[in-house]
């Protein structure tokens, strides 16, 4: 079932067959509004099932926020309990992924990679839903579904994060995650209701979209971007030293071999037996290569920020032109 779903490109859909009004989305939003604030992140479990070539997510529940007081809280236990309870009331209880909120689009991290890997490893069709509350607050719902690419899965499985390993797998930051299109589905009745509501709503309700102030958002993004660039810089410097060391050693090794060869040649000419073979790898231990996964993740994150900023600025430019036109018109 899952493999077929995979073959068809894996389209994720939200299907609501019951009068549960955009239930999952609203639940996620509500969860964030209740528990998350600022850069804090909220997480939860997605439930649903695979139908033909779609993954239908029909329900979700949040992970409870836990403080340091109840360190012995068993999350797995809680999930099982929750799913059993849901089953009792005849709701889809199949685990199909998880969701997480984000702060200015910063979600590409080691933690996300690890947990998504374990999800995808256990349940192949798992997705992670990233919900951006800040963008949503600005007027446009921002929900994105990601999966790890098969290549990355492969690497994670082997835990080979050396430069060579990554090179062999030819994984770049752009093909670490694949985004899966989302379709939000409502029941017809809800659609009808929405139409009706839209007619009733006044223009002022939609003003948020036209907010012209941009510097705050941009500043925050830039700040985060800068931090990441710093990190990346550090990693590069590290890698730089590594490769310098490596090349130095290569050179030494080369010289050593040459000297050895010369000596052997001399010995041969003198009729002596050649020097015994020695284990060169023991003599020249290659320096520890810095793990590249973090660098890759940072690059991915930077990419993400850039996308965000680009989107935001283009939207804002549009708004500004509009505003200018309005000014001119008046």
């Amino acid at each position, binding site marked *: 079932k899952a493999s077929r779903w995979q073959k068809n490109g894996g389209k994720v859909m939200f299907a609501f067959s019951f009068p549960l009004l955009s239930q999952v989305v609203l639940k996620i939003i509500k969860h964030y509004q209740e528990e998350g604030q600022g850069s804090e992140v909220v997480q939860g479990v997605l439930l649903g099932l695979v139908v033909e070539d779609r993954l239908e997510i029909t329900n979700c529940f949040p992970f409870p926020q836990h403080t340091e007081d109840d360190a012995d809280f068993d999350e797995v236990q809680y999930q099982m309990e929750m799913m059993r309870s849901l089953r009792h009331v005849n709701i889809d209880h199949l685990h199909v992924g998880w969701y997480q909120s984000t702060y200015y689009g910063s979600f590409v991290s080691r933690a996300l990679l690890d947990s998504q890997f374990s999800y995808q490893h256990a349940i192949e069709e798992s997705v992670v839903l990233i919900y951006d509350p800040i963008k949503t607050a600005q007027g446009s719902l921002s929900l994105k579904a990601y999966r790890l690419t098969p290549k990355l899965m492969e690497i994670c499985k082997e835990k080979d994060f050396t430069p060579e390993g990554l090179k062999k797998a030819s994984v770049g930051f752009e093909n670490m995650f694949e985004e899966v299109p989302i379709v939000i589905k409502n029941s017809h009745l809800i659609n009808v209701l929405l139409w009706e509501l839209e007619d009733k709503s006044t223009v002022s309700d939609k003003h948020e979209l036209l907010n012209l102030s941009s*510097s705050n958002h*941009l*500043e925050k993004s*830039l*700040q985060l*971007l*800068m931090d990441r*660039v*710093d990190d*990346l*810089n550090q990693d*590069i*410097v590290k*890698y*730089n030293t590594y*490769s*310098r060391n*490596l*090349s130095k050693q*290569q050179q030494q090794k080369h010289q050593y071999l040459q000297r050895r060869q010369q000596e052997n040649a001399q010995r041969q000419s003198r009729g002596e037996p050649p020097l015994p073979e020695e284990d060169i790898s023991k003599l020249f231990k290659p320096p520890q290569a810095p793990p590249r996964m973090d660098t890759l993740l940072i690059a991915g994150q930077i990419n993400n920020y850039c996308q965000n900023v680009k989107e935001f600025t283009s939207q804002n430019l549009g708004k500004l032109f509009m505003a200018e036109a309005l000014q001119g018109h008046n």
Partner: protein
Amino acid sequence: MSRFFATGSDSESEESSSGDEITSKAPGTTIKQSLLLSDDEEDTKRVVRSAKDKRFEELTNLIKTIRNAMKIRDMAKCLEEFEQLCRAFLKSKNIVDKEGVPQFYIRLLADLEDYLNQLWEDKEGKKKMNKNNAKALSTLRQKIRKYNRDFETEIASYKENPQESADEEEEKEQEDSGSSSESDDDAGEEVSAKSFLKKKPEGASEASKFLKTAKGSGDESSSSDEDDDDDEDWGGDSEESGSESSDDEEGKGKSLATAFLKKVSSTDKSGMKKAEKRKKQKKERAGELQEGEGVEDGEGPWEKVKGGVPLVKEKPKMFAKGTEINVPVVVKKLNEILQARGKKGTDRAAQIDLLHALAAIAAENNLGQGIMVKIKFNIIASLYDYNPNLAAFMKADMWKKCLDCIDELLDILFEHNNIFIGENIAEDSENLIISDQPFRVRGCVLTLVERMDEEFTKIMQNTDPHSQEYVDNLKDEGRVCGIIDRLLSYLENKGSTEEICRVYLRRIMHTYYKFDYKAHRRSLGLQGETKSEQDQEESEAEDSAIIMDRLCKFIYAKDRTDRIRTCAILCHIYHHALHSRWYQARDLMLMSHLQDNIQHADPPVQILYNRTMVQLGICAFRQGMIKDAHNALLDIQSSGRAKELLGQGLLMRNMQERNAEQEKIEKRRQVPFHMHINLELLECVYLVSAMLLEIPYMAAHEFDARRRMISKQFHHQLRVGERQPLLGPPESMREHVVAASKAMKMGDWRTCHSFIINEKMNSKVWDLFPETQRVREMLVRKIQEESLRTYLFTYSSVYDSISMETLSEMFELEIPTVHSIISKMIINEELMASLDQPTQTVVMHRTEPTSLQNMALQLAEKLGSLVENNERIFDLKQGVYGGYFNRDQKGGYQQKQPYQRDQKGGYQQKQGGYQRGGYRNQNQSNY
């Protein structure tokens, strides 16, 4: 039991002290033995008793050691000796077969077994034993069990009747020890000598007489001219002692051992115990004497007596009555006394007294100044010797004595012009006899005075600085200075330049840290309040500044050792700085180039350097040169070890890093308390100057990524202040400065002022300056100016224009000052504004980038470095694989590069244009 543990030699002296009559006599005999007995007497005895005794003696000696080892619970030793004993016993098998197993042997075996069993039972004790001992114990126990099986019957009989056999045994033992003491057994002799000496209080008169003669005979060996009357003494004494010990000798004539033994065995046990106790006390008393003898032990009894010389110090009989006292005799005597110097057993106090006595005799007999000077030299030297340890400091009274001596010495030297002293005058070329020729004496006053000065420093270091004692000691500083002054004038006439340099440096060292209040008052044109003071002022020869100048310049010109010059320069700078002659001090510091190579100097000089730098910084602060002050203090303060660097105390933190030895050395480097620089003042000056520099800088560079901290320590203090959960009114000096900084950040100079200058801070810091009022005025002024700058930096963005008049009112500065400050800021491109002359206003240009723009600039910078780093990686890759890769790729990359460079250049150009357009240029900023 304890009696049994007594060692052989103990039992011997035990015997000697067991009865009063005997005590007085027995030692007499023994010492007489060694003194008087003719050799053949001893020899014959030895021959007679050889076969049996030799073996038994060996055994008893071994038994002795075993018993000793038992006493100190040294099982390992016990085991070792026991094995030897067994071997020795086997050797003497023949004799044993003839005579039967000796009782003392059985006794030891029985005792040892008992003892071991006892130890074995004692679980607690066994636990405490170290591993070696415990192992030895178990081995020994097994061995002795096996061994004792052979002697079962004997041991049983001994145990039945231990008393009897013990007595019997003792007889033997004593017999042995008797013989051993007769033979040249050193230990025995020593003990007897000891007991003789410690007996002194009892038979005081006799003993002292004896001693006197002994001493006399010691003299005899050295000084020939007192032969006759010594001989008389000697003869009398030997008679006396002979009669005393007559019955002993008698006994010895027959059988020395038995004569003693009868008495001993007849004395009851209680008597013995008592005697033992008494003996112990005596032993303790004798301990000190013994020490003295220990050294000369090898040289026989004669030497021992010589060591006892100090004993007769009450009635120093330096020279025999009739001797003609002249120079050579005195010199001889002096040398004799000095020979004892440095030896372990020499009583140093007595030596000093002897020398004094000798000096008195010399003075009495008018032997001339030469000899006096020589004796004085030696007295001072032995005073210094009094403390064997260099680290320990002299007692204050000793030191004062020394001071007196030096004073007297200088008196003599001043009075008599014809005395030459010098280190290089050889001992034999000395001329001490009064004659037409000038005296020539070996010795160096300068060294003595230097040593004295060092001792003074040591005394000051070791006195609690908050005690009255310290004040008392400090009062002597005047005397020290006086002596140095006198020496200085003496050496100026007679000494070599080198010596003059050295004494000058001493003088400088005593001058440089003192503030010359009189000169200060004079320079202010103030008259002394009272007439007498005025007189005093007039009588004062010169300002310390002039003295310093003269002395230092001499050293600069004449000194050939680098160290003295360096010290002199540093002291000179310090003195200048202390008296607010900032420019002289700074110029001297810069000219000397000391900053370049001071790290090669030894620690005391480095400490002096640190002190000088600090004083320089404080001086700069007083003059209002905040930046200079900050720079001078930065090194000392930033390390957080100011206390250590200035030699004003050790940091506890470092305790574990250094061992006791290092700590001692470091302690010796400490500067005495009266020379300390107030650390709180130092820190306050530093923090306030940092505040005056840092706050405007922070305001100016709020969004600058490349902003650097001027003072880390100041920032640290600020952070500490911010971390406080509850901000109360400031208490400590630091809190005051932090609070003031916060006020200054807002441009609120009045609050800042009230935090920096108030009662608390006055008493803590500002009142410590000589010109308090002037410093405070300067400080207020600085606070006003810097607050104005900060205000303009912080709030210029909210103004379109601001009137200078308002500013001058706000900061209580005159309009011209405000004008000049603002102009300076505009010129330095710190403030984007222009002055509108007619309206007296500052018009802002509003060209500051917004925070977003700032951020973007920063990001661009960071990306630039990122790209650079990335390119470097690529270069490296090319270097490695360069040979293998096809050229196309390489070419392609290289082709790409110019494009990238273009881009970068364009960006940079753009940035340049940006800056020209009015953005602040960071490089041109003031700091």
